[in-house]
């Protein structure tokens, strides 16, 4: 079953998933909710569960995202941890031409380990 997208508040996550190959999730808009983990947590638990069953890579594309708050950073850290625990490879893609994205996502490289389960790359 293909992964669904998500929309809440000003944030949209568009899922591109043909049922085979990587699950691509394109973030756009803004993530400024007070408790983003309340929505993102269960959503990504389901996404990672499906990806684990299919042995699929999950790609998070942030290039089109305009803004996120620090609570969203915390939610993304939880996704990174959950993906690693489920043995799902996670690829984070950002736009290095946007200074805020470069600063935010370069810092997340602290979670890259030798297990190759997390890759952070820029366009």
């Amino acid at each position, binding site marked *: 079953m293909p992964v669904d997208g998500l929309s809440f508040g*000003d944030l949209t996550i568009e899922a591109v998933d043909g049922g085979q190959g990587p699950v691509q999730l394109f973030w756009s808009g803004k993530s*400024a909710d007070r408790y983003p983990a309340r929505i993102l947590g269960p959503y990504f638990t389901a996404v990672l569960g499906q990806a684990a069953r299919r042995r699929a890579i999950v790609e998070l594309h942030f290039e089109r995202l305009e803004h996120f708050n620090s609570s969203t*950073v915390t939610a993304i*850290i939880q996704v990174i941890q959950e993906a690693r625990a489920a043995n799902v490879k996670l690829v984070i893609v950002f736009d290095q031409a946007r200074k805020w994205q470069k600063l935010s996502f370069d810092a997340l490289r602290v979670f890259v380990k030798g297990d190759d389960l997390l890759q952070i790359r820029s366009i």
Partner: protein
Amino acid sequence: MRHQFSIDLPVRNEWANVDLLRTSILNCFTAVFNDVDGCRSMAMVVGELLENAIKYGAWSGDERGFRLKVVGEENLARITVENPIEPTDPTIADLMATLAWLQKFSSADEAYRARLLEVAATPRELGSSKLGLARISYEGSCRLSAEVDGKMVRVTAEMAY
């Protein structure tokens, strides 16, 4: 051209106002400055400080508002958020401890990365990552300070531009 400016607003403590003001600040300063990235940084700092005021302010009494000030002189912007507190509330000690903790690092980058690892190692608590101040210091390249004045706390971020 000298970029002197001053914004001083009373704000209702409603979550939706965070993004309304963050976006307004972004639009205002984009109209003034060429540096879009710098405007985004300033707007991010405003957003994080406003979020903290709403999360940690003392809103149990009749108080429903707080204050945002953004002042620019020469090459320095000073962003201040002032909100009511209970002076004995542990969040005030937490705030001061966080500011002291940030100063222990040789760079804001190092402090932010250390904070990310702490967040990852800490049990989940909805809406309370305490990452915002480290982010302001790192992404906003800001110098942070705070002062308690009776039942108010004033948090200021100074940003060179």
